[in-house]
């Protein structure tokens, strides 16, 4: 068996909360190219809250995030044990339909990657591939989601021009709108503000906070202040292991594990 770095934690890191679990990761082990990346992950993420996954670079934060919507399926040679339940359904079950799983989760990546098409088509892309053909409904979805991310007034006169002409902050909001257009339950953010200026960062953070009522949001970040600003819970990952998981203020102010203390105080990074 593997050797734990932290103190032997209880098997599943659950938080005492009234909210039901939305995502449950059970005994997850993952190898990429025979390298053990994620080690015995047990986490239960409550519904309609924001969770920040923090930890030094290379600790497996992004990998953990990508296992949640099976984005690693196509890359490299992976070997996976354990299970990930979303609303009680095992997304790694044999009969699980990967496109349906991914549709349930919007992904916001490190840098915005608008699809090579117009602003309108970027937002309409998801609904279209899932079979929506009605022009009226598509227009309605695009309008609704662009308003949702506060982009409508900035782009309403150039909906059909290329999305790559937008500023990088606008592009990131467009990507968020694109993700929301397929009506996901969960939003995954992979250091989604790391390429943005402070004002755009703030806009995205405020957006995420406002979306919390309808979505469960999992963020990967290496900025502790951002984790403090936006998240309800923090998960500290170190060398592929969950060291500590708890309410934001507990983790940042009263960490129980020595490693967490060191990380929060900046002794390791």
């Amino acid at each position, binding site marked *: 068996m593997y050797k734990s770095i932290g103190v032997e934690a209880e098997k599943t890191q659950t938080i005492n909360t009234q909210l039901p679990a939305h995502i449950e990761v059970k005994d997850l082990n993952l190898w990429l190219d025979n390298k053990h990346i994620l080690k015995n992950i047990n986490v239960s993420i409550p519904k309609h809250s924001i969770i920040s996954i923090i930890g030094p670079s290379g600790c497996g934060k992004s990998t953990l995030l990508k296992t949640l919507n099976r984005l690693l399926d196509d890359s490299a040679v992976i070997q996976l044990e354990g299970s990930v339940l979303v609303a009680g359904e095992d997304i790694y079950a044999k009969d699980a339909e990967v496109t349906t799983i991914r549709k349930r989760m919007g*992904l916001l990546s490190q840098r915005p990657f608008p699809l090579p098409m117009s602003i309108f088509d970027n937002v309409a892309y998801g609904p279209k591939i899932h079979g929506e053909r009605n022009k009226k409904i598509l227009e309605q979805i695009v309008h609704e989601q662009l308003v949702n991310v506060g982009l409508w007034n900035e782009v309403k006169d150039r909906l059909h021009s290329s999305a790559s002409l937008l500023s990088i902050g606008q592009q990131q909001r467009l990507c968020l709108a694109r993700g929301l257009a397929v009506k996901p339950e969960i939003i995954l953010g992979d250091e989604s503000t790391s390429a943005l200026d402070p004002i755009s960062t703030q806009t995205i953070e405020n957006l995420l906070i406002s979306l919390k009522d309808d979505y469960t949001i999992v963020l990967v970040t290496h900025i502790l202040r951002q984790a403090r600003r936006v998240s309800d819970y923090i998960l500290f990952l170190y060398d592929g292991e969950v060291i500590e998981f708890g309410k934001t203020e507990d983790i940042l102010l009263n960490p129980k594990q020595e490693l967490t203390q060191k990380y929060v105080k900046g002794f390791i990074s």
Partner: protein
Amino acid sequence: MKFRKFKDNLFKSHSILLLCLAIIVFIALFVGLLVKSLPLLQAEKLSDLLLGSIWSPQKEAFGFLPFITGTLWVTGIALVIAVPICIMAAIYLVEYGGNSLRKLVLPLINVLAAIPPVLYGVWGVLMVVPAVGHFIAPVFSVNSTGYSVLSGGIVLAVMIFPIMISVMVEVLKTVPQDLKAASLSLGATKWETITKVILVKARTGLLAAIILGVSRAFGETVAVLMVCGNVPGIPKSLFDAGYPLPALIANNFGEMMSIPLYDSALMFAALWLFIMILAFNIVSRMILKQMEERL
């Protein structure tokens, strides 16, 4: 210090000189061909030369239309065959086949590029011509010897595979992983991601690869000459023989001295090939530029 500076300057002036040399070769080629074709251009009207379809040097009838159409037929057929195959092959190598397959296949494809054209010609005569004559033409109820623009196109297609596939693979590799992830994470299938995102994103690069292939196809001589029949008439179907411009020049260069204006006519053929390739490159560059601006 002085010496280092001198070396620096020397290199700069050297580079300019070499650049000028390249440009001079280009201009000299054009001017040389033009001067040599002048006798013919003075004797005949340009429109008669380009649109005339009768080729009979002994009677001083120089109609180039059969050769121009022959070139276009062969290149067009090669393109129709090669482009879809190369795009699919490149997609498979980049998106489905892993790294190890790519490392195995790409060098093999590059070996194809190193095979001398005459071998392709021999392969065409031994395999493609009989196949076209005995198997493909009968399907369309056509009588054909097999020496046809179709055979030329097939051989040419195979010859431009390597350059097109290797450039396309490089182009497709530049599409960011995160862009694919963006499409996949919306619930798109891999195929939807390829057709709606990857190919669209890579379209300028893919077009550039096609341009490279076509430029090569335009000028290819020996292999095509061996399989396409070399009859100076305008090909009306895939199974008709054709006579592309490069083949005309190569076939007749030895005997041109005995007939008046013949040498000038062959130089004009070369000049016209030069202009066609130049025009094709300029137009495709303009299209590329427009596409890039729209992205």
